[in-house]
């Protein structure tokens, strides 16, 4: 015991051993391996395979493929249809992202208030998100039908002739975009609502004491706190909008006029399965992947810039 009393009063803590902790590394590898294996097999191998296929002319029904080098890429970039499809994709995506985020935020702000029956309304707003896009597409055909649709009926009552949503490319694109926004509004709404409920209440109180106007309060106090959520939603909504297929297939099959509502992901389907050109479909998919990758990188950069 005497030895203990003779020791230094402020002994240094024992230093951690330098070098690899093989037990921890082994455990980490063991835990990560199943997910990594799944990612490699089901995510990255198909991706690489898709890029490989994009250099071939392959009829999907055939056991044979023919190497065409960059031929498919040259065809896509020199086809006038490609640019119409790109324009459709950009219009749809921008409108879908902006529309669902603005409306979703507005609904979240409204239903964040203490209102009677808000629980039921929240459920109603979220419900369409869990319904399949194909089912919604079929149901909305009755909303936009030129003969007996809800919109035609409502406009008739106020003496306005309803446009034929199925025969005009612009209106058809509006129709599928509006349907998509309606379906996905619940997702944006619920994420924004969670973010609103988790914001700092002391800032609200301080703002109230300062007598800040509601508009100024929203833009200066609430919105900045929602920035990470807005970034997250802009990425996820953009990615899902880019990939919309079911609603277009159910409502317009990419028409009217052949490609009136064809977006780039719908072109992948159309070329691969309707025209049986799996190689060309893979080319379009690779181009789309590149576009999504670039957009995501830009978003990440912008966000990093804002954080700095």
């Amino acid at each position, binding site marked *: 015991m005497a030895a203990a009393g003779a020791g230094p009063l402020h002994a240094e803590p024992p230093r951690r051993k330098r070098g690899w902790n093989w037990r921890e590394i082994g455990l980490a590898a063991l835990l990560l391996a199943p997910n990594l294996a799944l990612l490699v097999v089901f995510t990255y191998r198909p*991706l690489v395979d898709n890029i490989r296929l994009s250099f071939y002319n392959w009829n999907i029904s*055939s056991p044979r493929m023919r190497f065409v080098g960059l031929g498919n890429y040259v065809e896509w970039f020199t086809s006038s249809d490609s640019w119409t499809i790109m324009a459709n994709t950009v219009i749809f995506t921008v409108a879908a992202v902006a529309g669902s985020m603005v409306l979703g935020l507005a609904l979240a702000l409204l239903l964040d208030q203490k209102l009677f029956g808000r629980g039921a309304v929240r459920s109603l707003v979220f419900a369409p998100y869990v319904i399949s896009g194909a089912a919604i597409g079929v149901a909305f055909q009755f909303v936009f039908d*030129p003969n007996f649709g809800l919109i035609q009926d409502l406009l008739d009552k106020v003496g306005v002739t309803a446009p034929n949503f199925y025969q005009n490319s612009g209106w058809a694109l509006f129709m599928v975009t509006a349907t998509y926004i309606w379906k996905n509004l619940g997702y944006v709404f619920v994420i924004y609502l969670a973010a609103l409920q988790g914001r700092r209440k002391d800032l609200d109180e301080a703002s109230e004491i300062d007598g800040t106007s509601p508009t100024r309060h929203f833009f200066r106090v609430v919105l900045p706190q929602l920035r990470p959520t807005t970034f997250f939603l802009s990425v996820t909504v953009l990615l899902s909008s880019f990939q919309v297929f079911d609603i277009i297939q159910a409502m317009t099959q990419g028409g009217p006029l052949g490609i009136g509502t064809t977006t780039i992901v719908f072109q992948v389907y159309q070329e691969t399965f309707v025209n049986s050109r799996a190689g060309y479909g893979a080319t379009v998919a690779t181009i789309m992947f590149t576009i999504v*990758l670039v957009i995501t990188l830009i978003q990440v950069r912008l966000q990093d810039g804002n954080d700095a």
Partner: protein
Amino acid sequence: MISRRNLLGLAGAGLAATAIAGCTGGSTGGAAASSGGGQKGSGTIQWWSNHPGSSKEVEQKIIDAWNAENPNLPVQLVDGGANYEELGQKFNAALAGGDLPDVIVASDVTWFNFALNEATAPLDDLWKEAGVDASSYVDTLREDYAYDGKHYGVPFARSTTLMYWNQDILAKAGLAADKGPQSWAEFAEWAPKLVEANGGKPALMVPDGSNYLDWYFQGMIWTFGGSYSKEWTPNFTDPKSIEAGTFLAEQFKAGHIGIAKDANNTFGIGGSAGLLQSTGSLGGLTKAAQFPFITTYLPGPKPGACTGGAGLAIPNGISDERKLNATKFIDFVTNTKNTITFTQATGYMPVRKDAVDDPEEKAYLEKTPNAMTAIKQLAENTAPQDYARVFIPGGGARIGGGLDKITIGGQDVEQVFEQLQSETATVYKRDIEPLL
């Protein structure tokens, strides 16, 4: 340096692309196995169908009869999609590495692509082995599935284009209520009267380009002396083809012809005096329409209509045993009794010669003259379809899109048809010529 957020973003992009990559498949391994070593089955015959003419119920009825006779070799009906294209797409996905069915419904547009790429089996030897009398099928319908001296399908839900006329409106317009126009020129004369008699609604409703307008227009283009193609040579730019396209565009512009996504419904609610549709719509319209209607031939001169619909085919990649069983089942589905059951339920044409002469069918046809029109028209007013629509990959959709452009899009007929000419030639050179 990559932050966690960067990584998440990139992973998101990767996943997006993978979803697409998944669509496009990635293997050609399972496409066409040699006849001896194909996929073995589970002892159940799988029949993939899109239930043409809302035939799911009657298909199941036929299957039940088979299952009762063959308890050791049951058949399972599998939903293959909402239409022929979706079924074709599902089959393509199976070819790229999935489990193959035993029997598929192959449409006028999809069967040739499957045959050309050896995805479906030639049936001639299987017919001999199974003791099937192929000569008992209606010759023209059976020969629609012939390629390179072999047959790759059996006629099943076969149709022609037909005209349906609301008799009340015909009478109101002061026209005979028991016949249709004999030529498109006569239709153009009738149309203003029909439009006026029906409160300004189109005289004739036709499905749009996404719903086989290319099929319905084929008869019209023939009557003008044009065609989509002469065998493999595109013929869209022939002055007579352009004349037909111009006629369609002008009739649409004048409000005589209406184009709709769901033309059946429009006609069914009185939205047009006439309808250009398939024989297969007869069953549904008979049940739904609240007014008397007749079916008539498409306007001439002959041939003014084309055959269409679907047959049954057998995947090439399944085992010989499965192919033989599938052949027997197809023979059962299309035997005289089941042909009668099927045609009476749907309105499709009888595909066996003796079905037409069967007393039960004769009695039905006498009682239902609208069903008789298609059978008579088959002999008198039809021709096989143009290669550009049925044999060139994506031909139907391409032509349908072009016809949408000259009608609802108001685009120049010559320009659109020139584009169709050039695209069809390109696809032929790229996808067909090397395989012939």
